[in-house]
């Protein structure tokens, strides 16, 4: 799944640690999501949506190439 997490984080001038702390996850989790190695759970994606004040579809996008 593609995502705009890195861009959104950079727009707010937040570090990975800061975002991780606000979401209650580890920095490694944020890094794995940003590098698209890990897709977050629905509750975490919704938390991100709430934090960035965006709907989930504006943050995450299905990668049509992947099955």
């Amino acid at each position, binding site marked *: 799944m593609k995502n705009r997490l890195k861009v959104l984080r950079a727009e707010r001038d937040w570090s990975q*640690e800061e975002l*991780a*702390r606000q979401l209650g*996850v*580890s*920095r*490694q989790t944020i890094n794995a999501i940003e590098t698209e190695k890990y897709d977050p759970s629905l509750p975490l994606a919704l938390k991100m949506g709430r934090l960035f004040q965006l709907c989930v579809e504006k943050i995450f996008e299905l990668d049509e190439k992947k099955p």
Partner: protein
Amino acid sequence: MLTPILHRKRKAAEAAAQAIKAAGGTIEQTRRVYGTRLLIRGLLWASIYLLSRGLLELTIPSSAARVAIALLPTPFFVYYLWTWMKGVSEMDELERRIELEALGFAFPAAIVFLMTIGLLDLAITLNPDDWSLHHVWLMMPLFYYAGLWRAKKRYQ
């Protein structure tokens, strides 16, 4: 009698976790706290295990005493396991997934290993000094750590 003690310990552990969160602690801090506990309790278990092994090497005639010595490390290992499970419950979703993948690797690897040892033992009768249950169980944590390394690498 044991239940109120365990209940008090659980409440104290929950209060400690809450205190970390209330103090603005991150999941990394919680991980460090559980990591330290796991290390201390793991060392305690390993020490008791080595002590039991050492005592069982001695010629103790009473079989009841030998059984008691053999069972001595078990509660310490259960305590260690309980700490590990508490630590997992404090992890975030990616860390839990890493743990799951590590166990998902370790469990089939252990089955394949034991099956192979069993068949080889039938084929050529392996030396029990090297391949008995006294030693072979040590491979199980190694499979877990190999799985953990593999899963961590995947999400780095």
